């Protein structure tokens, strides 16, 4: 391929010539002398590598989106626009985010700081970020407007924007203060102006190197043809899982297909009887698209890793890895989602409950990819997502539970419960569902069903939690749900 692959970094074109497909964007940037972004963990947990990328936001606009540069293959940035901490401002002319961080003591050792700057700047430029008072008077209380509380500033800053950035020095208070002190971008701010124009369109990319080949086809038919030609090729969307395999486990792909920008995988359709979500939409995009239509997922999103990860991670990826501790499967199982698989032979649909076959095994064939996830409507009236983990922000669950219950006239008409972390695959809590359906939604019934639920699955002991604790958490989850629906003010931490 003779075409010139390059990334626009801080306004300067940086060729991808000679870059191996296994090289991540962080190492690529650092090799260019842009050493502001750092490697802290190489698995998308610390955010020291955070940079901003101009991503599509509706038809005509773009959105500065913070992502973990350590996870994304450099090749996947072909044709994209990237801004690093160096590109935002200089010591003589600090960007507003940089100024607030500097004067308030937001940096101590400074190593995590450039990453914080990029995550904070992305939230600074979020188009629908408005001061609390303005938000209250304009469009009321949509899912993306919040009262100022300990996770939201008066300026509309959502602290979850920084949930994927770790700081070992400050204890976070001055960083929060810096975030909450930010005003709106000034008139003529170049980054704000850039957002009013479309994001770069994805180019066809093919990069060959010692470790293998990365290819990003232009559309789905091309992708399926490549997949038919290279069955078992690694499919890369947000690369939030694959990047970890490359960096931490030293896995190299002889052939990787970039599917993150395929238009056919980025559809979003709300119908009368279902919502269809393109498999390559990021969780952040899905969250915005749903606008609160599926309350169970609204509970899930803020608990799914961090904003940095949600800006890359996709439903397709979370289901594609087949991990028993992915956070979306328990929720999607409860929602009775259907997986739409595509191959050169056409589409087929598989209920998610039949999708997983074993530890990281699914019914998806080597020549198939996940095109979309379909969630039937209407959704059940009682919905909850419980995630048991050591840390509230950005952790991997030891147990995850999705609840979707219909209670009519005090009787459980329908119960769907998805479980993660308690078996080799995500599972439905079928015995518990049976113990509830047709029964009154009362304390006695719930207690009995909770005992059944405590025996679901085959939890293991590991470094995240002991088996008895996992079982205990299964046992208490239903009690908690019942208590929440009965006396919401009693909900604990």
């Amino acid at each position, binding site marked *: 391929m003779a075409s010139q692959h390059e990334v626009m970094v801080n306004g300067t074109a940086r060729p991808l010539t000679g870059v191996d497909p296994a090289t991540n964007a962080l190492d690529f940037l650092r090799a260019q002398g842009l050493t502001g972004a750092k490697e802290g963990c190489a698995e998308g*947990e610390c955010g020291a590598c955070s940079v901003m990328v101009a991503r599509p936001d509706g038809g005509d606009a773009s959105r500065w989106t913070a992502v973990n540069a350590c996870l994304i293959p450099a090749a996947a940035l072909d044709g994209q626009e990237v801004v690093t901490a160096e590109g935002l401002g200089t010591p003589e002319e600090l960007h507003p985010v940089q100024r607030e961080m500097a004067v308030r003591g937001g940096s101590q*050792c400074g190593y995590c700081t450039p990453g914080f700057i990029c995550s904070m700047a992305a939230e600074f430029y979020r188009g629908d970020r408005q001061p609390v008072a303005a938000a209250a008077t304009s469009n009321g209380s949509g899912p993306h407007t919040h009262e100022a509380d300990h996770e939201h500033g008066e300026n509309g800053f959502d602290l979850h924007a920084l949930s994927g950035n770790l700081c070992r020095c400050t204890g*976070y208070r001055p960083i929060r203060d810096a975030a909450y002190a930010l005003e709106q971008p000034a008139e003529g701010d170049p980054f704000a102006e850039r957002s009013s124009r479309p994001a770069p369109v994805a180019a066809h990319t093919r990069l060959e190197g010692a470790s293998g080949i990365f290819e990003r086809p232009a559309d789905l038919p091309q992708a399926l043809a490549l997949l038919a030609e290279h069955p078992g090729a690694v499919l890369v969307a947000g690369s939030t899982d694959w990047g970890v395999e490359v960096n931490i486990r030293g896995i190299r792909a002889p052939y990787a297909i970039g599917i993150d920008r395929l238009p056919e995988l980025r559809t979003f359709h709300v119908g009368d009887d279902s919502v269809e979500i393109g498999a390559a939409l990021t969780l952040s995009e899905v969250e915005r698209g749903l606008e609160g239509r599926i309350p169970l997922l609204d509970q899930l999103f803020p608990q799914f890793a961090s904003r940095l990860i949600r800006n890359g991670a996709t439903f397709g990826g979370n289901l594609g890895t087949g991990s028993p501790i992915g956070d979306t499967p328990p929720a999607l199982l409860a929602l009775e989602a259907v997986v739409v698989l595509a191959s050169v032979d056409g589409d087929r649909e598989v209920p998610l409950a039949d999708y997983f076959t074993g530890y990281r095994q699914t019914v998806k064939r080597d020549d198939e990819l996940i095109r979309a996830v379909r969630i039937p409507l209407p959704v059940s009236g009682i919905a909850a997502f419980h995630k048991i983990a050591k840390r509230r922000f950005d952790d991997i669950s030891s147990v995850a539970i999705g609840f979707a219950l219909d209670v009519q006239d005090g009787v459980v008409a329908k119960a769907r419960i998805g479980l993660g972390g308690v078996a080799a695959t995500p599972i439905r809590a079928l015995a518990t569902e049976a113990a509830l359906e047709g029964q009154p939604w009362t304390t006695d019934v719930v207690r009995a069903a909770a005992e059944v639920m405590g025996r679901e699955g085959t939890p293991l002991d590991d470094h995240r939690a002991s088996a008895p604790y996992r079982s205990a958490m299964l046992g208490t989850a239903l009690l908690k749900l019942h208590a929440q629906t009965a006396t919401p003010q009693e909900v604990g931490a």
Partner: protein
Amino acid sequence: MSALSERPANSVVGQDIPHEAAALHVTGLALYTDDLVQRTHAVLHAHPVQAPHAHALVTGLRTAPAYDVPGVVRVLTAEDVPGVNDAGVKHDEPLFPSEVMFHGHAVCWVLGETLEAARLGSLAVEVDYEPLPSIVSVREAIEADSFQGARPKVERGDVDAGFDDAAHVFSGEFEFAGQEHFYLETHASLALVDENGQVFIQSSTQHPTETQDIVAHVLGVPSNEVTVQCLRMGGGFGGKEMQPHGYAAIAALGARLTGRPVRLRLTRTQDMTMSGKRHGFHAQWRVAFDDSGLIQALDATLTSDGGWSLDLSEPVLARALCHIDNAYWIPNIRVNGRIAKSHKTSQTAFRGFGGPQGMLVIEDILGRCAPLLGIDPIDLRSRNFYADGQSTPYGQPVRHPERVAVCWDQVLATGDVRARQAEIEEFNATHEHAKRGLAVTPVKFGISFNFTAFNQAGALVHVYKDGSVLITHGGTEMGQGLHTKMLQVAATTLGVPLSTVRLAPTRTDKVPNTSATAASSGADLNGGAVKNACEQVLERLREVAGRRLGVHPADVRFVDGQVTTVGGGESVAWADLVNQAYFQRVQLWAAGFYRTEGLHWDSSIMHGSPFKYFSYGVAATEVEVDGFTGAYRTRRVDIVHDVGDSLSPLVDIGQVEGAFVQGAGWLTLEDLRWDESDRPSRGRLATQAASTYKLPSFSEMPEVFNVALLERAHEDGAVYGSKAVGEPPLMLAFSVREALRQAAAAFGPTGTSVDLASPATPEAVWWALEQARRSGAGQDEHGHVDEGAPGVVPDQPDADDRPLRPHSELAAQSAPGGA
């Protein structure tokens, strides 16, 4: 007031200024060791070959296959070492081991043209291992009598008599975890050789001089052939006090052998599996109280988990023994200490340096015993505070003990603690599924290195002809703001604006024989040295100015860039005076030195006055616990902390907050799990990445976080009246743990005492609240505290033939004579 502590009016010290490198941090321009690789030509990259056994002999090592990997340049093995094959100062840490001592131990290193080539080369190296039996927990070490190093003891009074006469005697045991430093920047070194074969190493190190020492002894050259520079660190926390040396030595060795620059930067998992951590401890204790809750006697045996080599385990243990009293007067006390030798990373310094471990034991004891005594933990703690005239168990008079009470009262008042206690009682009574707890805990922490020789520092101050000033000192910058403070000290001493002074990176050819930047002492020691150097220059300038202004030199004043007289008459600009002094051939630079006065310590009997002073602080923390899961939130924290007269309030507040959250991480969240099974992975660190080892994130920040520095806190005898700040506030986090304990106990009846594992993860809190519930359900379960004199006597050092047995076994044997 001493000359050292006296502070001029309107001084630059005490001003609220941001970190000196803040603008570089936020723009991504601040350079860290590994950033220099991009600016260095033809660098080789180092990658380790890590052993997959906790304990094994290396019976064969074949490097030839690695050379078949494209890009592999050299494999470094023990045979390449021209000097001493040792990475430490105690000669018990072979750099290239023939016996693998922990899972992940590096047996050799591969150098490649790229990191990928070195990585693939390391996979190609063939190593034969003969696995050996291993010890991977402190309990296993105790049972196997596997110890190393000294077995110190601190003793005062008649301990046994203290138990005989006491109204209440309790005994128990407690094992608690260590902590990974998780500095965001992993260990990194970049070594170059010059035309004479001299070695220049840029290293992320808190102790450049010791890095220099170790590199020199590995290379078999004198120290004057090795220079170490540290630009700054992306966090240290003690993890880069002793541990960087071996990595620097590998880079230096590679550079000497290949003639090319060698870069060594550990990945996060390499760093976590190879470098040392905070020591986990095991404690056995018995304690005696009188009827009012005053402590009569304490008898404890602390066993630290040292890992495979001694490293800093002995001084860490000494500090633990010297801090088990925390802020409490304990008339009769005996504390024995010993260091387990286990097949784990060699545990090392970590912010607090054993102090937190010692103090955690007494705070755990008070937290467990308060309900059994029927005394509010707030009252139990404050009743036992030191009073004027009392001394620590190791014989040092406690100066300013009233500051604990002052901090305590201020926290109780500004934190509205008594009213909130009542609110919490009301909340807990009306909420079945959620409970709150509010705990207040004190800190008293000794400042100075226990090892007296380390309490010295040097500095180099250059005043150039144009009046600009360049300072260098022996301390390293790791985010703690030391350089910021040193700039402020220099500007204050010289009487010039801050903008006149610049600071050059720490390097061993500027200031030699430095101490580690550790023990919170960086500003005390280096500040003393910087001030001394500035004063030397000033004395000479005073003569010049006196002549120029026509006054006695003693009447010259240096204020804000102007040199004037005591009467404030004629003045001359600083730069003009300096220029004039140059033409008069006056020396305009000076080497400064400082040694802390008044310290003495006999480590053989653990007695003396090892600390210049004590730092004090108090924290009140309120938490809420979810009764369904054990998950919790920190609702509010109020802190008053004593930093003397602050040199730099913004920096000091940042240190207090950061230390508190880091301490809370250790006590509640951060979970080091080693594989203790008999599988082949035995000894492997199971939580060896950011995805499995969780640091505090925004979700752990207290929702309300009020930090105040104690006012009118001048410290006589320290630079400009200030006090150290790095470590002491870490231990304010005990209040989080005790609040969790109280919230968990609130799920049971009043007076319930619960055990709480450390770290108090949601799971641990869940088991604690389940214990409280069982207690409430009539199942008598008062934690694992035994009641009754004379208590269960902890293991004593003269009983070498008797292995430590579980507390329950000992309790059965000693048959306490009733409560």
